[in-house]
Structure formats: structure tokens, C-alpha cells
């Protein structure tokens, strides 16, 4: 998978929030074999540069850091946070979140497009957290995004893919744009479903961090993502209404 000219072997991206401890986070990252870890500036450490301890732990994981603007409710706030993230993590990558509704935490797609355009013009490589809406996706691409991160379901809800049809349509319309399903994945089976649809990768956090055994769950998701991708590439059969025996019936004796 290639995200902004970076070739990645793993199609799983992992969030770094809400783990029982940094040690468990580090073990989970290893077990997931992920190469990209997202980190929030606001949620975890406030706006001050006082989260240095935690951020150096993240840097020490030896993976690529994808800072995010989680918790931002306006384009302006998200742009400011993105710039701060670039200074702290020395990366042009930014996972752009502009939250539009406090209850569902769904993206404010208008603010998202606005912030994406401003950041892309400023040299950022933007990973926009968006809905599965085709028109919004198109605007994000026009704004300069080269990756799309449609949601599966609201953040932290663990509900899986709320709109498989929408994600399929997105895939069909933008066959060459990397699609990462971000948010809503609760179980490994959800990740398999997403990957079987043909999306390029999956980003998740709560499903691993809040599991009883986050390290084991990280391993389970790694295998789920691989299985889903392999299933997609192997071109699955289409469901049929009529049962088809896998061994020929001709010539076998009918015992009534």
C-alpha cells in the first residue's frame, strides 16, 4: 500500500490513545505489525508542549507517526493543531479531523474541505477523516488530498460498517485513491469485511486499546486485515440462490 509516496507493507494503522499503559501500547504496536501510529495532540496532552514524555515514547516505537487533530471542532482549530503537530513530529502527514457533532463525533465535512485545502496548500499531506459521501470525497481530492479516510461508523462505537454500499460506491468511483476505513471498527470481522470490499487499509484504536487483552487483539486485527485483503485479491465468488454441489452428483446412486 502506498500512502503519499510511502510504501507500507502493513495495511493496518493503529491509534495510540486509551491503552492501559505505554508498555502495553508498545507491545500492541509490535503485535499488530503496523508501520503507522496515530497520535493526538489535544486529547492526550493538552495544547501545551507538556506531553513530551508520551510523544517520545511514540517516537521510540520505531514506526511512522501520523499526528491527528482529534477533538478539533472548527477548521481553524484543526489547522492550528496540524501546524503544531508538524513542529513536534517533523512530518508533513496529518490526519485531519474536524468534528461537526458532539454526540456522534461525525465529521463537519464543510470545515474538513476548507481545512484540507489550506493545509494541502501549505505543503501538508492530508489524511481526511470523512464520511462515505462521494461528493465530499471528490471535493477533498480537489482540495489536494491524495488519501481518503471514510468512516465505518462513529468513532469509538465499534459498530462495524454502517454503510457497506456507500464504501463500495466510493471504491468504484475512486479506484486509484487509497481508501482507509477509519473509525467504527469494533471486531476483527469488521476489518475483514472492510478489506474484502477492496479498501486499501483500516485504521483503528479503541477496538484494540479497550480490549481485555490489547496485545492479543492487535495480533487478531493484523491477521484479519491480511485475510480480508487476500480474500479481496483472490476474487471471491458471488452468492447464488441455487445450491451447487462441490462434487458431481452424476453417477452416484440415489438411495431413497
Amino acid at each position: 500500500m502506498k500512502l503519499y509516496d510511502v510504501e507500507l507493507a502493513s495495511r493496518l494503522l493503529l491509534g495510540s490513545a486509551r491503552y492501559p499503559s505505554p508498555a502495553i501500547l508498545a507491545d500492541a504496536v509490535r503485535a499488530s505489525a503496523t508501520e503507522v501510529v496515530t497520535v493526538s495532540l489535544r486529547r492526550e496532552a493538552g495544547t501545551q508542549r507538556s506531553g513530551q514524555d508520551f510523544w517520545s515514547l511514540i517516537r521510540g516505537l520505531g514506526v511512522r507517526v501520523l499526528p491527528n487533530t482529534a477533538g478539533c471542532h472548527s477548521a481553524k482549530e484543526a489547522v492550528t493543531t496540524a501546524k503544531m503537530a508538524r513542529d513536534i513530529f517533523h512530518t508533513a502527514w496529518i490526519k485531519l479531523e474536524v468534528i461537526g457533532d458532539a454526540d456522534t463525533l461525525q465529521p463537519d465535512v464543510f470545515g474538513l474541505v476548507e481545512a484540507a485545502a489550506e493545509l494541502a496548500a501549505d505543503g501538508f499531506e492530508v489524511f481526511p477523516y470523512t464520511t462515505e459521501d462521494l461528493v465530499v470525497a471528490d471535493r477533498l481530492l480537489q482540495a489536494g488530498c491524495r488519501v481518503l479516510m471514510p468512516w465505518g461508523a462513529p468513532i469509538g462505537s465499534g459498530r462495524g460498517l454502517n454503510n457497506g454500499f456507500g464504501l463500495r460506491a466510493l471504491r468504484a468511483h475512486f479506484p486509484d485513491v487509497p481508501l482507509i476505513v477509519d473509525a467504527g471498527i469494533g471486531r476483527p470481522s469488521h476489518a475483514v469485511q472492510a478489506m474484502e470490499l477492496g479498501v486499501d487499509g483500516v485504521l483503528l484504536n479503541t477496538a484494540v486499546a479497550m480490549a481485555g487483552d490489547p496485545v492479543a487483539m492487535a495480533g487478531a486485527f493484523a491477521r484479519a486485515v491480511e485475510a480480508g485483503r487476500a480474500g479481496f485479491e483472490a476474487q471471491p465468488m458471488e452468492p447464488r440462490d441455487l445450491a451447487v454441489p462441490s462434487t458431481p452428483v452424476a453417477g452416484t446412486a440415489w438411495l431413497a
Partner: protein
Amino acid sequence: MRIGILGAGIAGLVTAVELAGRGARVEIIERAPDHAEACAWVAGGMLAPWCEQATAEPQVATLGAPAVAWWQRHFDGTVQRGTLVVTATRDAGELALFGRRTERFEPIDAERIGALEPELAGRFRQGLFFPDEAHLDPRRALPALAAQLTAAGVTIRYGVDADAARIDADRIVDCRGLAARDTLEDLRGVRGEMIVVRSPDIQLSRPVRLLHPRFGLYVVPRGDGVFMLGGTLLESSSHDPMTVRSAMDVLNTAYALHPAFAEAEILELGVGVRPAFPDNLPRVLRRGRTVYLNGLYRHGFLLAPAMAQQAARLIFPHTTETPACTSA
């Protein structure tokens, strides 16, 4: 044996009790003029080893279980009335999950919740009751321990910046918390925030935890209508004042627990930065004549007794105590 303890926070004081009890001549050196700069000063003071199982490593419950009896022996303000855990009906899944990860509780219904805490009657349909847990007021417990130590002949020197190399003692026990980062490099700060309110309209007799998918809250009664509200946990070593966001999260959730909190007076907004190792578990380790006790994280009152005993065993190997964990 003469022992110098650096730091009169929870780790230093409890360690002094254990060492003085084994016959050592103990002196405590504290940088601050009193206990008010200690993390423990803004702590909840919950002795909740089983509730903590929901998020902590299993060792926390094992090491923390004897803490209730330890505090009962050393501080008569220790109250063992259990912990009540409740959640809004729409978040029932949180309660089920909490129950799967913890033990030593009884699932209870609305009627029992009302019997335990009449103020909460009719507000919650289901909860968990952890009858063996206890709580105390850190701002009474720390001075009480200090007074007890002084009476036993332990010297506590406040307002003295310690230079370990120049302390005239056989052994040093370094209990400086985050200040020990100069030698214990993988220590980090984890910020906690709390609000103290007074509401004569609410009576609670035990700590109550309200589970919520986003913001967990605990309320610890301090008596006389005073309550400590806490719950935020941030990966930050900033001592800056509490943010509006954190205050809103805590106060909103308190209001959800009981609407009368809306009329409570805010007495204090407090911040503490707890020392933690990467696994969030405490450690006792020895380097030369110095023993380090650190990384109590959010479990100061709960784990200090077991860790102090572990430190004491390093110094006095021939005393017999129940074995504790991590010695690195």
C-alpha cells in the same frame, strides 16, 4: 541503621512507617514546606484494588488488597464502606464490561442502590457494589502519618533540598516521585485533575464511580458536604491549571450523577502529576546504598504499603513479610 528518606509524599511517609517499625533511625527530607506539593495531596484516596482491575495490571489488585488493613492500622480515618459503581441506562454495556474485568463485587439493582445511597434512589437501574473497598481523606491521612512518625522519633525536615550524596546515613530511600527523573530515566508524568465541591444537598457515604464511554467520574465524599470529583487522566507532565475542557467533562458528569451538583460550590480545582513507569507499575530498585521506590502512578495510597514493605525487605532482608511483586 540510619536511613535517610528523600520525599515526604505518600511513598516517603509509608516507607518511613515500615522502616521505623523495623527499628531503623529514620530521617525524612522534604523539599516543600509541607505536604501540599505531593501528588497524594490531590489524590482521591480510594483504596479500590478490585475496581482498579478494570484498567490496571493484575498485580495492582494483588499488591493493593492488603492496603485496606494497612491503612486501618495506621490511620483511624480509614472508612471501609465499599465502592458503588453505576452507569446511565443507555451505557449499560460499560457496566457489563467493568464487571467482566473486575471481581469481589455484587451486581445490584435500583432498590439496593437506593438502600446503599438514598440520594441516588431512582436514578440508576443497575450497579456494582464492591463491599471490601475503602477510602480516606489524603489531607488528613498524610499529616496523621507525619505526626505518628514524629511521635515515634522520626525527624521530618521540611523545606530542605536534599543532596543525596551528602546525607549522613547508612542507606538512602529515594521517594522523590517525578523529581527522581534525573536518575530514573523512564519515569514519566501522568497528569490528573480534580475538583473539590461543597454541596449540603447531597449525602454520599462511600466513593461512587459513574461509568461513561467517554468520561469516567469518581466522587469521593470528604464529609461535611464536601466531595472530591476526579477522573481525568492525561499523558502530560504539565502542572498548569486545569483546562476548561477538563472541568466541563468532570462537572458535566457529576451533574449526570446527581443534578444537585449543579448547585454545589466549587472550592478548588487541583492538578497533580503522578510518576509512572512505562508499564504503569511501581518499582523498588537498589543502586549502591540507595533504594528507589517510585512509579506509584494513580495508585499511591493503594500500593505504597506493599512497595514500602518491599523496600524494607531489601534493607532488612531477615524480616518476614508477605511477598510482593516487581523488584527490578
